[in-house]
């Protein structure tokens, strides 16, 4: 370490009040000999004086209230719902964890089939027979529905089965959302 670097370090440490007595004496002796470093030491002390005596600035009035209003408006207050969110995220990750191997297996199976002409032909035949089976089943359902239509109107069956189920689903969704809203409002009113 050169002398200059050493005394620069001493000056820095002196400003931090972290200089031993021998080091301080060595610095003083050096500054008495070096005008350039003595001038720099003066300037460093001025910098230290200005910075250490300048007070903190105050925030504008009402700042804390604005921060709390911003927090309230972002609805970050409900830690429970955030934990629920975390739970959902973990659930989705777990689902992905289980689904990815299945998708990989499916992809491998598809690759094996595509690269094997015999298997591809078999798949095509299965597909066409499946399609014809689906068409015949659809026709059967149509015939059966027609028979039911003669005895009881189809619309009545739909109304008695699908509509109550849809209403039940809508009520469940509304109930869950309302529950979250009420817990947030309760916390707000407690304040």
């Amino acid at each position, binding site marked *: 370490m050169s002398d200059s670097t050493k005394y*620069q*370090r001493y000056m*820095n440490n002196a*400003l931090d009040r972290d200089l031993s007595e021998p080091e301080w004496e060595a610095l003083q002796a050096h500054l008495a000999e070096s005008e350039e470093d003595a001038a*720099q030491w003066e*300037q*460093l002390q*001025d*910098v*230290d*004086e*200005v*910075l*250490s*005596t*300048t*007070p*903190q*600035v*105050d*925030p*504008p*009035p009402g*700042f*804390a209230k*604005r*921060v*709390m209003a*911003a*927090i*309230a408006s*972002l609805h*970050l*207050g*409900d*830690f*429970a719902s955030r934990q629920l969110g975390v739970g959902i995220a973990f659930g989705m990750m777990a689902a992905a964890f289980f689904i990815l191997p299945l998708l990989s297996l499916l992809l491998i199976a598809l690759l094996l089939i595509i690269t094997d002409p015999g298997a591809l032909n078999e798949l095509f035949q299965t597909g066409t027979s499946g399609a014809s089976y689906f068409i015949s089943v659809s026709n059967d359902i149509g015939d059966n529905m027609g028979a039911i239509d003669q005895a009881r109107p189809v619309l009545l069956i739909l109304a008695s089965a699908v509509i109550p189920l849809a209403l039940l689903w809508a009520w469940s969704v509304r109930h869950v959302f309302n529950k979250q809203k009420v817990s947030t409002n309760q*916390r707000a009113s407690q*304040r």
Partner: protein
Amino acid sequence: MSQDSDALLVQQTLDGDQQAFGELVLRYERDVFNLTYRMLNNRGEAEDAAQEAFLRAYANLERYDMNRSFKTWLLSIASNHCIDRLRRRRLTWLSLEEPLPPHPALTSDIPGPEEAALTNERNVFVQELLDNLSPDYRLAVVLRYWYDFSYAEIAEMLETTESAIKSRLFRARQALANQLDANPVSALNPALEGS
């Protein structure tokens, strides 16, 4: 004692008492605002950044380690946010389509007693000094002089080494001393006496 009660307020906030976080905001608003103002040198932007720092702290409160000082944790959030803002600001300045921002001294247009504190000669002088430092150096100076943090604490906050912080502060002091050489502190003395 302060740290214990900080931890208590954090726990109460985590238990759903938002008012407890309000206490923490009141306790540290000055520290956080001072940091953002010293770093950004613009009153409006400093207020936005300070608010953002509190929001980030609140949103990440579950990650706060109760064994650490809440103030240190909060100021490290504010510091990182200021560094991000300064980087974005630099990119904006580099864009030819964006107009240059007005001089910080001209942006303090909000009336009130706090304005006097911000626009007085000493603050303008100090902010001009700080403004010529790189963000990393400026942050080291601000944390050292206005918060009296040790090198170890600053290093922990900025996720670097103690020697790196010591080096930054040393170079920052030298740069500031060179600035003072061009703009002597004696010109400020009347303002210092008056403030």
